[in-house]
């Protein structure tokens, strides 16, 4: 199975791509001006910030960066498109030929480019008597389009790809919290020779369903020795099926020409001078390779908090990584709001080191950490945190149990048995079961 994705993300700018209208929400047709309404005589001027963010995304995706870029007009007639052409990048995307790693697999990135969003059409009234309203508040909102190679091999992987990409882009450039329901994706999928494009699928859940439906449909055709027709289809969310799209948009000839009003932009220097910060999943991969931390823990750590990860890396300098994991994911993580002040970190580090070289017992170390966090010991229930320590240590040492647990919740019994033995009946079985499940669920 081969899947390629075409995704659009809104860039986090305050104003639109070619005018100074705000990108915030407003009553219909209130964030508009002559430029984003395409009035005769108005013309675009590029939002530098959007260009910068676009360039940083392209570089982050490991693209080959262009020295200079320009914009193009993609002409088609539609009521939500104010000029009946969209300003986009055709011959000169910001970057090409990049890659992005998902679950350890490298997925090719064909291109990253900027373009403007059209308006939105809202239909009201009974079918057959509908009235269409157009809201142009979104007209001219800056988007980045990312196109992947058909390297994805399953609907699940496609979903993971977007999930992880969003995590990274959010941290890289403050990408708006694009919830899973709002993202729109075009996907190419082929089970044999011919590919089918499923256009404009909204939301990750729908994308996964649409791809699954399409893979089954194509497989059945191929099994019956029938041909898959190369076509554009759309996903019907209610019936959960894909259907041939009414208008054959791909067959259309967009008649691209350069956008003469915008000229050329030299982005080579900008791209080279940008200082990209380390994104969470890239950091997780580094933790795995540098400290031998298991992948799930590393991900959980970076997604919990970047400052917690900072502390973890500090601890790694004084104690072996598995110790650092145990303490960070255990009592430190549980009391993070109190311990996140960096001035407490040297003290934390010395406690953890003392525990590691044997000069403190685990219990004493724990007690000191909790007191550093200002937790009253009687209420804190050292037994319960002792319980968590045992669970965390075991799970860290046996990542295969966690992998099992994903598919089969009964795998938790392995952990429960171990903990009962270790804690020598100090805890009720109900308590142990609850804590184990809690800890495992946190990591899945």
């Amino acid at each position: 199975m081969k899947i390629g994705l075409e995704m659009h993300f809104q860039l986090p700018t305050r104003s639109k791509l070619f005018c100074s209208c705000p990108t915030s929400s407003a009553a219909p047709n209130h964030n508009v001006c002559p430029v984003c309404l395409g009035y005769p005589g108005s013309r675009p001027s590029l939002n530098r910030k959007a260009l910068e963010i676009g360039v940083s995304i392209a570089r982050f995706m490991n693209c080959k960066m262009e020295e200079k870029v320009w914009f193009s007009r993609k002409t088609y007639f539609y009521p939500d498109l104010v000029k009946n052409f969209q300003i986009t990048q055709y011959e000169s995307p910001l970057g090409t030929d990049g890659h992005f790693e998902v679950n350890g697999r490298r997925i090719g990135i064909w291109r990253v480019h900027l373009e403007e969003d059209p308006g939105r059409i809202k239909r009201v009234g009974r079918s057959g008597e509908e009235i269409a309203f157009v809201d142009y508040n979104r007209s001219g909102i800056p988007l980045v389009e990312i196109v992947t190679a058909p390297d994805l091999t399953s609907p699940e992987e496609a979903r993971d790809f977007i999930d992880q990409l969003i995590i990274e882009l959010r941290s890289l450039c403050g990408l708006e919290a694009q919830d899973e329901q709002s993202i729109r994706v075009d996907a190419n999928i082929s089970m044999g020779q011919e590919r089918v494009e499923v256009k404009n699928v909204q939301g990750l859940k729908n994308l996964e369903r649409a791809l699954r439906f399409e893979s089954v449909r194509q497989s059945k055709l191929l099994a019956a020795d029938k041909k898959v027709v190369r076509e554009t289809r759309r996903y019907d969310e209610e019936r959960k099926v894909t259907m041939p799209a009414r208008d054959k948009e791909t067959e259309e000839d967009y008649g691209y020409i350069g956008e003469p009003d915008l000229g050329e932009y030299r982005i080579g220097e900008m791209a080279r001078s940008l200082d990209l910060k380390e994104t969470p999943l890239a950091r997780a991969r580094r933790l795995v390779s540098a400290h031998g931390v298991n992948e799930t823990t590393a991900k959980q750590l970076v997604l919990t908090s970047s400052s917690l990860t900072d502390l973890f890396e500090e601890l790694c300098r004084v104690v072996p990584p598995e110790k650092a994991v145990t303490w960070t994911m255990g009592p430190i993580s549980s009391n993070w709001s109190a311990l996140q002040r960096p001035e407490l970190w040297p003290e934390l580090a010395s406690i953890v080191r003392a525990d590691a070289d044997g000069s403190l017992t685990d219990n004493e170390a724990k007690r000191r950490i909790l007191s550093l966090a200002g937790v009253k010991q009687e209420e804190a229930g050292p037994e319960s945190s002792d319980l968590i320590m045992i669970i965390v240590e075991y799970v860290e040492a046996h990542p295969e149990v966690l992998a099992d647990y994903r598919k089969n919740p009964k795998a938790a019994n392995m952990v429960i048995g171990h903990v009962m033995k270790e804690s020598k009946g100090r805890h009720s079985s109900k308590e142990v079961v609850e804590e184990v499940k809690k800890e495992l669920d946190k990591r899945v």
Partner: protein
Amino acid sequence: MSASVTSSLMRLAQQRYRAFVETVDHLDDAKFHFSAKDNLCAVGFQARAGSAILEGYVPPFDATPIRRLKDAGGQLIGKTTMDEFGFGTFSVNSAHGVPLNPFDITRSCGGSSGGAGAAACLIPGHVALGVSTGGSISGPACFCGVVGLSPTYGRVSRYGLIDYGNSLDKVGLLARSASLVREHFRTIAGPDPKDPTSCAQPTLPDKGRRPDSLAIPTEALTNLDPAVRKGFQEAVGRLKDMGVQVKEISMPSLRFAMPAYYILATSEASTNLARYCGMRFGRREEELNQHFNDFFTGVRSVSFGDEAKRRILLGTYCRMVGFRSRYYLKSLAVRQMLIEKYRKIFQEHQAVLTPTMPFIAPRFEEISRMKPLEMYGADFLTIPPNLTGMPHISLPCAYVDGLPIGMQLVSDHWHEMDLLEMASVWEGAFEYHHPEVRL
């Protein structure tokens, strides 16, 4: 001149010569008066660009050149007649009447800034904002016997100009004298953040340098009306007497300018005109209760003129997959090549000199017999500098049977002031005629 005389001349220009499509009611005596071609947006006026499809469109903003002239103490007294969206050489492709030549009302003013040429000719002291894409300032200046300056592409902001071909459009000026043009050119020139293509220009110098060596491409002297050839040769003789060196050179690549120009201009125009679909602004008489494709097709079929439709078809064709690289992309290369040819000439000469139009202002009956290609051919001398974005000026240089003949000077990018310097010197040696009009 008193406001009342100007006012009478303005009415006359509007009613008898159809130079204006809209005017103000009262002239402000304390201000200087200017007009704008109808494709420049101004608050309080319709901006219809000669097209029925923009009927009733009153833009909510001023075009930057208009804004700047107002700020400098000018009053916009009216909008001038033009070919629909600038598509034409004789201003006959207008939905709002055809302007008549002040020298002879049976003849054309030229186009597409025909109304601007007539207004500049009829009203002393008047300055008319015109727009040139392929010769739309030079042509009317020539036929109406006035000075017409088309600046370097990017010298004057196009914010507020209703587009024809964005990589070619230039806002310029027409007036009776070079000094008038110079004064107001300084006002409208200069960078404007609302038009990024205006932001890379060098500062306009205080004074130009009079060109002392001119080149005439021999290719420009073929296919001329004998009267134009004779008048032009006399003007060349006069220039030589003034001590200017004039040398004939060969520039065979000039012939590629016309096809390249029409491909680029119509390709861009066909996308620019896509926005006229009966929504958001302009005319909307079609039944709303139908499929969008039928709706906008209906609006466009009824409201666009024949020439607009011809250019949309031509441009759309040139952009199609398969033809794009053969036509559109190749034309971009031709433009670059021509710029280099001109540059080579400018190493030895300061300007290129040719007649402006190959014939004197034609009669409307002659125009009605011309085929589209013959009409396009009339621009063969004005298209090359327009295609290459080089500044050019058309000056009256001779008269035949009382009708003006024009010559056109082209200089390197950003050298408008040199052209104006030359024009001033020329005006010291040659007196312009203006038609007598009875009020």
